[in-house]
């Protein structure tokens, strides 16, 4: 079974530039998560999708970050314009969710995209 795919693996940009990250979840996984992992910290959830709908984007800086999941499969996370403090690893994760049934719902992570903002 293929894992969660992310691209690019590394990105270096100047502040105020734009950048986009792509994620392809495990086939059949309805739930997709984007996490931000700043150096020396644990991952922090930015946004969660259930199919193509947003479940939680309370930690997403909406003035500069946006995300979409068209057709409930692939997802794109965009930053425009980037700030120095956006330097981090951006992790995508996916999980299989059975509606209205409690589940341990293991999240599987991709390799991440390391963003450096200069």
């Amino acid at each position, binding site marked *: 079974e293929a894992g969660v795919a992310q691209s690019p693996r590394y990105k270096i940009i100047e502040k105020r530039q734009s950048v986009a990250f792509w994620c392809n979840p495990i086939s059949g996984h309805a739930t997709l998560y984007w996490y931000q992992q700043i150096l*020396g910290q644990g991952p922090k959830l930015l946004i969660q999708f259930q199919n193509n709908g947003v479940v939680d984007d309370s930690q997403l800086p909406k003035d500069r970050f946006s995300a979409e999941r068209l057709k409930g499969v692939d997802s794109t996370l965009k930053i425009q314009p980037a700030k120095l403090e956006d330097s981090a690893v951006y*992790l995508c994760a996916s999980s299989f969710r059975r509606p209205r049934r409690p589940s341990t719902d293991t999240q599987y992570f991709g390799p991440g995209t390391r963003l450096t903002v200069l």
Partner: protein
Amino acid sequence: AQTVTQSQPEMSVQEAETVTLSCTYDTSESDYYLFWYKQPPSRQMILVIRQEAYKQQNATENRFSVNFQKAAKSFSLKISDSQLGDAAMYFCAYRSAYPKRGSNYKLTFGKGTLLTVNP
């Protein structure tokens, strides 16, 4: 809101020895899940072990086991017969079992413990 605390930024262990990584958490919920994730230098986060709060029995996965103390809100990871491949950042994470309406199944992570395995 739930919080997860890992008080050991770094730990080291000799190959073949046993090491225990500590994790404490704070929650007002009675039903939840706890996880240990491993993140090697390549950055792929991998699930190591999972514990359901309603289960009294501690989870075990081969050389990995946990000591779950619900009353103390403690969830430590024991790695037996440590191997060089165990070297990684280890994260403790919390997840609600039955999130309230409008909430979700997000993971709340600690800051991690960097484990070094010495040959």
